[in-house]
């Protein structure tokens, strides 16, 4: 079984995507043998009220609910996030995803600390992408920064009860953030057969804090899959990365 911890449904205004609807994303999942995708609303990155994207996401995945695990995108700088968070439980969200680059805040801002603290009290995992696209070719209206590892590290230390899944990171092996036991790492941008970052990370943090993610439908899924399937690691380790770690994080066991 494969769980993709880094997937999206929705609109991305800067480039035409080959898959935008839930049905189209399911087709991509089927093509790659991905059973479940942990998704958040891509539209929420730029909606002024990100919670509207959450509602849209739930409506969109309704017909394919068994294939998706929704994460709510909340903006702690925008009013009403507390009640939006409470409402997310009823909608079936299993965690939250933050886009601080697009919502113009730092992870260590007081409001964000409150949000992460409260979500963690509710048992929700918190996922944060370092970025949603490569900045070298960014659209002129898209000035979002790449997240710094030190910012994530500070958040993890300030809220030790949180479980933070860092998406789209690279060059993390043997950096201080790996010492934060409450930080998990998604592998889509890491080197594997050449450079061996995934292997180094397994050696440094153990296989239990690493999860597979693709970045679909912003990115092709196969490169990320190859990074795990071609690893010189036992099947048990690959299974943890491809499935069981994500399953534990999301309370699916």
């Amino acid at each position, binding site marked *: 079984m494969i769980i993709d911890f880094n997937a999206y449904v929705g609109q991305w205004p800067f*480039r*035409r*995507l*080959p*898959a935008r609807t839930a049905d189209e994303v399911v087709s991509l999942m089927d093509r790659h043998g991905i059973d479940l995708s942990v998704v958040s609303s891509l539209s929420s990155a730029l909606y002024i009220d990100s919670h509207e994207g959450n509602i849209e996401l739930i409506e969109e995945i309704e017909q394919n609910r068994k294939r998706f695990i929704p994460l709510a995108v909340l903006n702690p700088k925008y009013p009403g996030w507390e009640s939006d968070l409470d409402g997310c439980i009823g909608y079936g969200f299993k965690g939250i995803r933050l886009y601080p680059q697009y919502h113009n805040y730092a992870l260590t801002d007081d409001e964000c600390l409150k949000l992460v603290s409260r979500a963690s009290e509710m048992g929700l995992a918190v996922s944060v992408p370092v970025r949603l*696209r*490569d*900045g*070298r*070719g*960014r*659209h*002129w209206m898209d000035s979002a920064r790449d997240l710094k590892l030190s910012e994530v590290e500070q958040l993890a230390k300030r809220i030790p009860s949180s479980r933070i899944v860092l998406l789209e990171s690279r060059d993390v092996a043997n950096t201080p953030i790996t010492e934060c036991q409450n930080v998990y790492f998604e592998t889509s*941008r890491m*080197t*594997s*057969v*050449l*450079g061996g970052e995934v292997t180094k990370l397994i050696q440094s943090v153990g296989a239990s804090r690493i999860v597979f993610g693709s*970045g*679909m*439908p*912003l*990115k*092709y*899924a*196969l*490169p*990320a*899959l*190859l*990074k795990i399937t*071609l690893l010189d690691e036992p099947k048990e380790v690959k299974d943890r990365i491809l499935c069981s770690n994500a399953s534990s994080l999301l309370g699916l066991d």
Partner: protein
Amino acid sequence: MTPESLVNAADKLGIDILCCSTPIVKGMPTPEEFRASNEDLLKAMKDYPDKILGYCFVNPGYQSESLMEIERRIVEDGMLGVKLYNQYKCSDPVAYPIVRKTIELRVPILQHAGYITDPVEAALQPNLSNAYDIAYLASLFPEAIIIEAHLGGGGDWEWALKNLRKARNVYLDTSGSVVDAGMIEKAVRYLGAERLLFGTDLSMEEGVGKILDADIAEGDKQLIFGENMKQILERRAR
């Protein structure tokens, strides 16, 4: 990264031949420096004669030395073409003698390139060639074979495709860490699979995965993975 680790990674991914270069990416390398860099590559070629082919890297600012180095590396050492980096824009007349030499030897130029939209990143490479520069150069030298490097590592790749569409003697390699979904399909739509060359730029899974994953004809994948480059390599021997 060593030649051995690169070859091992290529073997895992089913890559038969690696067309490599060893450009000096900062400053204005002197003839002594680019000769030494090519010597390193030649050693790797000798260590892995069935696996590694080499592009000869030169700095066009040293014209006579560059032309001598190209002659030596291609004719005597069997290198496959010329690599130009970011010391000068390829549209700068300083590059023209190099282009003429590659036409004479019937070999390609692999041009490091990109259209970087982020101003901070762009400032790091003020003489970075882009697809417009390459298309211009190609129009001046229609007999030249020019390869624009790294569709997936040169910033706004859609901008590159639009500029290269009519530059018929320009190929585009697909390498780089960027794996934006739809990139290869659009490249095939704009340039045709006949003008695309598979590459990694050391982003190994990305390089292979984006071609395999693309929603294009199987025959087009075979062209991109090797058939097109094979024709370029055979051109020299004719």
